[in-house]
């Protein structure tokens, strides 16, 4: 009976080896993969039990921080400013993961970033609980507050972006309606679920960051790009007269493009400056066809169209687009920011910022620096970076003067600031007959030595009659308030 017992022993050995190999495979080779899976609650719990680093504004006000609590998660993530900064912070939810900066800067905030390696090593040796690093933003609380108040006072649905023209640092990023991220970070799963379901059910999409993630037809604010292309072509200067009849006969079609007012612009042949001042549709449609879609697209791309912005901060920003292959009537419509031209508020702020910065477009960014858990020692600081030369310094100067004319004598008079010259452009974009137009405004100030550029879009204004919706009336005052807040501080 000994030989079968020996064979059975060998069989047991085989089973034993199989168990050992399999355990080694799971725990040594498959482990990284398993730990990276998003539904792995162990990894999340581990993260939760560590003190996550704060997200700070330019003046060190925390907009996201972890406070110790007495439950199994040990730390509660809190957003002291709530909805104002929700599009920036996003939320940090046990059940639903992370969004916005909580996601993009997770490695730093959780302390897993390689740049914090030495720090972790010290913590390991000294027995300190490891903590996450801090993320400091370029956001100016005064500008953010002004934009928030401007949009929420009358219950507008819209967004505001303000940019420091010399660096590209984003000074304000507001999107309304917003939501309170605190319940999403609650330690009660039921509260998280209820909040999440309410967010998903809300038709206004409060968790959509309209400032960077939603593209809309820019309408007349896009005329800045068309004007820039015209000036850059060398065939036009601010005083060149262009035809501006009451209706522009769209080539190849039977339809005509009318002016908003129904009348001819000025005497029918406005100068470029006059055309911009009164936002003359027919003149710019004409310019569009004169320049051609390639020239328009090239100019738009030099302002940042067709390239995703904010990739350095990994914020999932939408890419603004200029149509790829429009025919002649479509080109004419594109030149006045209609047809398939789509832009985010961030993109339109970049257009103004580039004009303000002598024609140089700076790479926009949100994170000024990241530092270790002590908040003092910066690990990395974002250096301002030139992206493209959008227009020549001369063109920039001419465009500035034209935009000043818009604010002083034209459609943008609501943006005037006493004692400071403001340059701006209004826009009122049609999307469809069913819904009210989008009110746009983009501007920068002071015109002689610009420091801040702003873009405002109002998607819906509940208490305003359809005919009263216009960039100059609704959006310009908000832009003014934001510029004042930046310049005053």
């Amino acid at each position: 009976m000994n030989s079968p017992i020996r064979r059975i022993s060998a069989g047991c050995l085989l089973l034993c080896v199989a168990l050992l190999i399999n355990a080694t495979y799971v725990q040594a080779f498959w482990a990284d993969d398993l730990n990276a899976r998003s539904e792995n609650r162990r990894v999340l719990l581990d993260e939760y039990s560590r003190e996550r680093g704060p997200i700070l504004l330019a003046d060190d006000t925390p907009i996201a921080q972890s406070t110790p609590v007495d439950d199994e998660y040990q730390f509660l993530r809190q957003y002291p400013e709530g909805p104002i900064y929700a599009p920036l912070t996003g939320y940090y939810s046990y059940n639903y993961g992370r969004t916005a900066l909580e996601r993009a800067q997770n490695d730093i905030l959780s302390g897993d970033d390689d740049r914090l390696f030495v720090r972790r090593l010290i913590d390991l040796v000294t027995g300190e609980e490891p903590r996450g690093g801090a993320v400091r933003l370029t956001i100016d609380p005064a500008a953010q507050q002004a934009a928030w108040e401007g949009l929420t006072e009358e219950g507008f649905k819209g967004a505001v972006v303000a940019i420091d023209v010399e660096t590209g640092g984003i000074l304000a990023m507001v999107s309304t309606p917003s939501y309170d991220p605190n319940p999403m970070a609650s330690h009660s799963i039921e509260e998280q679920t209820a909040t999440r379901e309410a967010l998903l059910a809300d038709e206004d999409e409060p968790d959509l960051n309209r400032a960077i993630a939603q593209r809309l037809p820019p309408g007349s604010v896009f005329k800045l790009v068309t004007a820039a292309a015209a000036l850059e072509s060398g065939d036009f200067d601010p005083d060149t007269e262009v035809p501006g009849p009451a209706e522009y006969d769209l080539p190849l079609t039977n339809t005509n493009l009318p002016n908003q007012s129904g009348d001819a612009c000025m005497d029918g042949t406005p100068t470029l400056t006059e055309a911009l001042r009164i936002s003359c549709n027919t003149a710019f449609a004409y310019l569009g066809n004169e320049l051609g879609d390639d020239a328009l697209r090239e100019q738009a791309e030099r302002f940042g169209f067709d390239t995703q912005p904010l990739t350095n901060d990994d914020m999932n920003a939408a890419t603004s687009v200029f149509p790829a292959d429009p025919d002649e009537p479509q080109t004419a419509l594109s030149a006045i920011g209609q047809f398939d031209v789509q832009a985010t508020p961030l993109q339109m702020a970049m257009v103004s910022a580039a004009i303000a910065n002598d024609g140089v477009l700076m790479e926009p960014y949100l994170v000024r620096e990241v530092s270790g858990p002590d908040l003092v020692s910066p690990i990395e600081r974002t250096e301002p970076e030139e992206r493209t030369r959008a227009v020549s310094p001369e063109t920039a100067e001419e465009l500035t003067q034209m935009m000043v004319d818009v604010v002083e004598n034209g459609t943008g008079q609501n943006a005037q600031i006493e004692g400071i010259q403001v340059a701006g452009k209004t826009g009122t974009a049609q999307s469809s007959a069913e819904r009210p137009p989008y009110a746009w405004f983009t501007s920068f100030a002071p015109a002689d030595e610009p420091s801040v550029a702003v873009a405002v879009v109002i998607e819906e204004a509940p208490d305003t009659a359809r005919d009263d919706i216009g960039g100059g009336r609704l959006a310009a005052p908000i832009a003014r308030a934001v510029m004042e807040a930046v310049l005053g501080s």
Partner: protein
Amino acid sequence: MSLDRARARTEPPAPEAVAPRRGRGTELVLLIFAIGIATFAYVSVDLGALGRVPPNAMAYLGGLSAATAVAHIVIRIRAPYADPVILPIVVTLCGLGLAMIHRLDIADGTTRASTQLTWMAVGVTLFVCVLLFVRDHRVLSRLPYLAGLAGLLLLVLPLLPIIGHSIRGARIWINVGPMTFQPGEAAKIILIIAFAAYLVQTRDALALAGRRFLGVDLPRARDLGPILLVWLGALGILVVQNDLGPSVLLFGIFVLMIYVATERISWIILGLLLILAGGFAANAVVSHVAERIDFWMDPFIDPQGQVAQSLYGLAYGGLLGTGLGQGRPDLTPIAESDFIGSALGEELGLTGLIAIILLYALLASRGLRAGLLLRDPFGKLLAAGLAAGFFLQVFIVLGGVTRLIPLTGLTTPFLSLGGSSLVMNWVLVALLIRLSDAARRPAPPSSSSSLTDTAVTQVVRIR
């Protein structure tokens, strides 16, 4: 085979020149190590989870030492030649199991560890009883049919109306006063004894008589009949009770033992074919089984389910583990029972899990070794059945929780929470100790026995 036996019968055992090593000193040293590991694990659970030394650490050490000391002393008296490695392995495994149950107690706010410690005391008591009352393992072979019947009866008990009791869909429990007991655990051991006893009587017929069919030697129906009846009955009852693990285990043990008895590899092939066929049939018919197989193919269809959580736990532990008390084994459903292996893998890491697997393998190898050394066929069969069955159980449950094979519900011997399993495994170990004692005991000098047998007058000592 028959040659083997013939040799055993005719050859006089070589006289021992030196006094044989009993190994009791070695056992004592190893036991001190085992108790040390167990106590250290228990204390480090509290240190890891709560940051303090448990207040009852000394009492725990005392209790564990007392139980172990009793077992050790009884071995010294009743089985002095027993394998010295077996008991220390069992104590180490029990200690690790207790530490992990205590760890899960802390997480869940329960006090199951003390219950488990009580059951361990019961287990040691039964261990002692077996060693005291079963002086020679051959007495167990006397009543194969009665043993088979008793085993079946135990399996049927949970299906009876009043005492039967169902937990987590498996009707395998009976109520004994205020407690519940799984008679299946006892039935397993009794059925192994019955198989061994029966096969010893019939193995020649099983191996030699019969027809050859498709290259496989089929035994005669009347030789195979009774045992096939027992086996089918056992499987049938287990399927009715909706408990897959023990069915597979019992079938596996049956096939292994019949192979050892007949030395015909065809039995193994037949067994594997039957398992595959049964598996396919069950997959198609029993939803419970199909579900298990789905979870095996893709554990993440339910990310918070048992297998997925078990894998996450193992991955979270990695090579060195989180440290006792510092992982989250409580996230794995029923971590204290079927999934205690993955809980230990999480907190002790791959290193700890490998150590545990090797302890099991060592224990099984000691049992198989006793089987090789034993001189009587019943002892050989019993030792091989107990040891290989034990390791098969370990493989089925640990392979299940580490996703090597589909999951079937079985307890992890000595580690899992549960009185019946713990107590009956102590009985199993008592039998292995008894068998290894018999295997290693030097044969009595043949000359003296032949002298007394042939002497004309026998000296009878009175008083």
